[in-house]
Each structure stands twice: as C-alpha cells, then as structure tokens.
C-alpha cells in the first residue's frame, strides 16, 4: 500500500483548470480583452497534466502491482462512522483511468479545433474540464460516497454540456431530459447506497471493507441493493427503460458527444457494476436480470439505429447497443470482458464521433446523412478513419471491436443463456448493417448535389489517426487462447469472473458464425445502399422503427402527461380549493372575532379599572379555591 499525491493531482489539475477558467471568464466580464490562448492553455493544460500523472501512476502500478492510496482529508467522522475524501488506484481503476485520461485528452485537442470559432469557447472548456474531473473522481474514489459525488458531477456536467447551445429550446429540453432521467437513476443508486449504509455503515464504508463484510447482509436485502444500484446504472449507461435521454443528448457539441459516449459518463454504469462485483457475484438472479436488460437494450437500439438519418443519432443508438453488450457480459459474470469492451469501445466510438464531427464541420454543420453522399474522394483520410472504426464496431477481425465482442458472445453462449446469446448475435448483425449503411450513404452512394466543402484540419486528422491506432490494435492485448494468446488483459484485471468451459470445436464454430453474421449485415447494407441512399421498406416494422417504437410518445403519455395532470389537479383543487379556502376562512373568521373583542379596548380608563378589579377578584377566587 503506497500513498501518492499524484492521485490527487489527476483530479486537481482538471478541476482547478476549470475553476481558474471560471474566475478568468468572470473577470473578463469587466475587462473584455482576455485572449483565447489563455483558455486554450488552461483548458488543454489541465487534461495534459492529468494524462501525465495518470501515465506515471499507471507505469508505477504496472511495475509494482501495489494498490495506491491517497487520502486528502477526513470528510466525516461521526462516532466511528468515517468517510474519508480518499482515492484509490487498483487494477480496475487503472483500466478505466488509462483510457479516460488518454481518450479524454485527445478529445480535448479535438474540441479545441471544433470550438475555436465559438463565442462560448471559455464556457465550453470550463464545463468540459469539470466533466473530466467528475469522471476521474468517479473511477478513483475509494468509497461509494466519493464515487457518488463524481457520479452526480458527471450528471450535472452532461446537463450543462448537452444544453450548451441554450438559445434553442429543444437543446434545453434535451439537457433537462438527460438530467431528469439521470436523477431517476440516481434515486435508485442513492437508495441502494442508503441500504448498504444501514447494514454496513459502521464497519467501514470503503470498497475493501464493504467487500469483506458483504456476507453480513441478508440475501433478500442484497438482491434489493443490487437492483437499486443497477437502476442507477440504467440511468447513467442509458439502458431500458431510462435510455431516452441518450439520443437527445446529441444536441450538444460533437466533442461532448464523443466524451460522453466514449470515455466518460455512459461507461460509469458498467464501471459501477464491476466495482461492486463482490455484490453482484453473490446475487446471480440480479445478474441475469441485468443481462436481459442489456440484451433488450442492445437489440432495441440496433433496430432503431437502422432507420435514423441523423449521423450523430445513429452513433448514439449504437452506443446504447454496445453498452447493452457490456451489461450482458457483466450480468453473466464476465466482468473482465465487460471492461475490455468498455476499453476498446472508448477508442472506436470516440473515433466514430470525431470522424462524424469532422464531416459535420466540413459540411457546414450538416448532420443528415441523406444530404451527404459520395464523400469518399473528397475526404479520403476521414473516410479511411471512419472505415476502420466501422469495421471495429462491426466486429470484423482483426480490429479491436472484434476481440471484445467475440469474447462476450462466446461467454454468453457458454453460459447457456441462449435467448440472450441469440439477441446479442442478432444485434451484432444489425450493428454491422446500420454502421455500414451510415458509411455507405455518407461516403459511397452517389449524390446529386455538389457541395461546398471547408478544408480539413490537420490537428483533427492527427487526433483521428491516434485513436484509429487504438481501434485497430488494442484488441490484441486480450488475445484469447484460440488465437494463441492467453487473455493477458483479463488475467491482469483479475476480477472474479465466472468461467465456463467451451470446447475448441464449438469455439471455432462460434467464431465463424460471428464473422458470417457481421459480414451478412455488411453485405445487406452494401446491396441496399450502393446505388442510392433511399431506404428499402422493412415491412410491418418500418413505421415503428422509424418512430423509435413510439417510446418517447409512450413515456410522454404514461409519465409526463399524468404528472402534469396531477400537478394541475394539485394547483387548482388541492391548493386553491382546499388549502387556500381553509386559510382564508380561518383568517376572515378570526378577523370577525377581533371586530367584537376590540370593543374591550375602548380607551376609557374607567373600564380598564373595571377589568382590573375583575382580574383581581378572579385571582382571589382562584387562590381561595385552590387552598
């Protein structure tokens, strides 16, 4: 056990860069000539220092393998119940920290170019850095309370950033939606934490003590806690039924989408479940439930993504779908595969979003893929990058997405939950279909219009290239035995995975099936869209898919409308008719009463003398009686 200040600096550098930018921008209200360079320096410097600190920490950790602690101060100490503001770095944290700091920094570089012309450049980086700080706190926290602070911070910053362009009411509504749905999830998370606290609050509340004492909780309560915590994950990681904020969150600037979807926020739910693996390992029913939620979310998102036209919304649904995979994995006990998919997903999803953002920039903020087309020769570099990312997410070997997805699919099959496996496989096919639909419509299929294009930006291309290396090669760190590796990443993570035996033959059959399914999707997409961007009909599913299965409308009528009726009822009937009228009657009666009683106070001294005499007589009578 080592103590290291560096752990604190990972968070502090981004946090204080955000605070300094805030102060400077406050000052600039009175003195309007702060050059943008200062914000750039702080906005990019903070994450750069974080990246450096993380790199040093991770390097040390990989060499020594000792868990690192850092205690900033004792936050609470109430008769034995101690909450420390302390951080911890173990293997799981290293796995998360590595890509959060790296991909986060790359996205910051990209955001610098993307937002350069924006008048709210400073505001953007203030919140962007705060977002990073919250996410670092979330993964580095060594007790659930600190984790919850990061958890809430991430929610807050996502709200701020989603409604970044707050001049349009739709964007504000999207931000509110993200915030409110996250609050619903947080309610579950907080209830779960409270239950944990009731049972284990006084035997230490950091993760290590919780793990040691988890057996003290009766199993019914454990199940309840596991479900409540997962409700939090549903909100953060956009699973059924709390997912509807994710597509709307595309209202924010593209770097925000990249950050939310790749490195931060949505992975928080998966991370949380893996962090509580000691809890979920002994509540297997909840695990299966999680896996089913993941499977349905993955399938639903993939179906909806098939017929979306907004390039960012397609990617948003694909994120939800990939998160479904992660939850299927962690639900059925394959924690290391879940984290592995989080890891590879961070790279190819960031690459997809940043590629999409680059296209959007070049096309003067056009997001409708139907209005793009034939961009292959006009932006060959971006085409190559998007192609790599699409191959990776579709699960084509040897790209990174293939290895993580294949590992999960194998695990699902061998765990004998065939329904989940079937849905996951179907989703895999749909994924390659809709991703190639996007790619083909944007880059290959002919376009009638001649568009005026802005030039590509060098720095953007550098960032894309860096991420594409990750999207291509990172799969090899967890090379399965089948390909001659021995799953080094999973071994290193050392999480309590459930292992199922799978014979060599069935593994090869599964491999072939996975690849065939992915290729079928690609072939379908290619045959349907190579000549034009018109969508072929999907039969009876066409309308529901285009309308996202009417989920938004259903929620609107099931929750929003009744709630607004209820509040109207409370205002018009309970408040006005009952409470107000009661108060008014009371006060008017009281006033009328005072109308009679104030005759007593007539200012006439003779009457006062009378009252006094009566008072004295009463006192004497009382004294006489009480004797």
């Amino acid at each position, binding site marked *: 056990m080592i103590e290291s200040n560096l752990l604190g600096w990972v968070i502090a550098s981004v946090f204080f860069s955000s605070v300094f930018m805030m102060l400077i921008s406050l000052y600039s209200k009175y003195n309007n000539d702060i050059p943008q360079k200062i914000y750039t320096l702080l906005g990019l410097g903070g994450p750069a220092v974080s990246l450096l600190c993380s790199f040093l920490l991770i390097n040390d950790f990989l060499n020594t393998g000792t868990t690192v602690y850092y205690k900033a101060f004792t936050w609470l100490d109430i008769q034995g119940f101690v909450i420390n503001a302390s951080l911890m770095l173990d293997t799981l944290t290293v796995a998360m920290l590595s890509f959060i700091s790296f991909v986060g920094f790359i996205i910051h570089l990209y955001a610098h170019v993307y937002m350069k012309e924006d008048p709210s450049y400073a505001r953007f980086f203030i919140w962007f850095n705060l977002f990073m700080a919250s996410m670092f706190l979330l993964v580095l926290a060594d007790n659930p309370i600190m984790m919850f602070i990061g958890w809430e911070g991430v929610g807050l910053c996502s709200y701020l950033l989603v409604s970044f362009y707050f001049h349009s009411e739709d964007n504000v509504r999207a931000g509110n939606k993200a915030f409110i749905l996250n609050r619903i999830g947080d309610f579950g998370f907080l209830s779960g934490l409270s239950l944990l606290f009731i049972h284990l609050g006084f035997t230490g509340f950091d993760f290590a003590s919780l793990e040691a004492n988890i057996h003290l909780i009766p199993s019914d309560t454990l199940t309840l806690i596991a479900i409540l915590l997962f409700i939090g994950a549903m909100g953060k990681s956009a699973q059924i039924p709390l997912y509807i904020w994710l597509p709307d969150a595309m209202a924010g600037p593209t770097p925000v989408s990249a950050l939310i979807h790749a490195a931060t926020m949505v992975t928080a739910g998966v991370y949380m479940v893996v962090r509580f693996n000691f809890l979920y390992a002994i509540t297997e029913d909840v695990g299966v439930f999680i896996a089913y939620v993941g499977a349905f979310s993955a399938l639903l998102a993939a179906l909806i993504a098939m017929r979306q036209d907004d390039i960012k919304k397609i990617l948003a649904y694909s994120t939800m779908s990939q998160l479904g995979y992660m939850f299927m994995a962690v639900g059925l006990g394959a924690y290391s595969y879940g984290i592995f998919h989080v890891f590879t997903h961070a790279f190819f999803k960031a690459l997809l979003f940043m590629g999409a953002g680059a296209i959007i920039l070049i096309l003067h903020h056009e997001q409708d893929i139907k209005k793009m087309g034939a961009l292959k020769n006009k932006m060959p570099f971006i085409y190559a990058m998007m192609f790599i990312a699409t191959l990776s997410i579709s699960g084509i070997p040897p790209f990174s997405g293939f290895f993580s997805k294949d590992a999960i699919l194998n695990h699902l099959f061998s765990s004998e939950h065939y329904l989940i496996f079937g849905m996951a496989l179907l989703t895999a096919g749909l994924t390659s279909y809709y991703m190639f639909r996007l790619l083909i419509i944007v880059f290959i299929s002919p376009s009638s219009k001649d568009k005026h294009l802005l030039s590509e930006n060098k720095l953007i291309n550098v960032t894309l290239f860096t991420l594409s290396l990750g999207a291509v090669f990172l799969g090899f760190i967890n090379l399965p035995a089948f390909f001659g590796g021995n799953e080094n990443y999973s071994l290193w993570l050392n999480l309590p995975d459930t292992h199922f035996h799978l014979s060599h033959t069935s593994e090869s059959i599964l491999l072939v099936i996975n690849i065939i399914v992915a290729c079928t999707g690609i072939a379908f997409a290619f045959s349907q869209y190579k000549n034009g961007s018109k969508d072929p009909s999907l039969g009876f599913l066409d309308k529901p898919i285009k309308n996202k299965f009417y989920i938004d409308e259903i929620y609107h009528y099931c929750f929003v409308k009744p709630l607004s009726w209820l509040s109207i009822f409370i205002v018009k009937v309970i408040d006005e008719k009952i409470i107000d009228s009661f108060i008014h009657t009371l006060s008017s009666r009281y006033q009328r009463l005072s109308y009679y009683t104030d005759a007593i*106070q007539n200012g006439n001294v003779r009457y006062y003398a009378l009252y006094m005499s009566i008072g004295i007589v009463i006192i004497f009578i009382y004294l006489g009686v009480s004797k």
Partner: protein
Amino acid sequence: MIDVGSFFILGILLFSIGIVGMISRRNIFVMYMSVELMLNAINLILVALSHHYEDLNAQVMAIMIIAIAAAEASIFLALFVMLFKNARSLDANFFELLKQEKHHD
C-alpha cells in the same frame, strides 16, 4: 369595645364604595375621591389590626400611606388643572386616546 370584625366590614364597605365610584362616575374629581376612599378603607383596616395585635408596624404603614396620598393629591390636582386647560373638560369618557382605531376591511 368594638371588635375588629366591625372595622373589617366597614373597611370592605368603604373599599367597595370606592371601586363602584371609580368605575361608575365620569367626573375625574369624583374618581380621584373614590381612590382616596379606597386608600382610607385600607388605612382603617391597618389601624384596626394594629390595635388588635398590638403591633405598631401597621400604623407606621398607615401613616406612610397618608403621607404618600397627600403628596399624590398635589400632583393629581396639578394634573387636573393642566388637563382642564388643554381639553376644557374633566369628563373621563372624553379622554380615550388609548382606544383601538377601527379598521374596516
């Protein structure tokens, strides 16, 4: 020898007359006289009890009350003169500055 009970009855009667006079009469002079009557009723009882118990303390108190009442009398009379100069009236009902102002709402 008259017994102490008779003095008590006389004192209570005088005191009651004083209270009734104080409350029922409107002329400030008469009200003042009623106050004096009450004081003297108390003095009477004090002196009677002093004689009964053969204790001079009560007589001392009675003399104190008479002395203070005499001092009061001069202040009261001065006040009445000023009051009459200002208001041209000695009717107690005329002076009702402490009265609650009516709010009609």
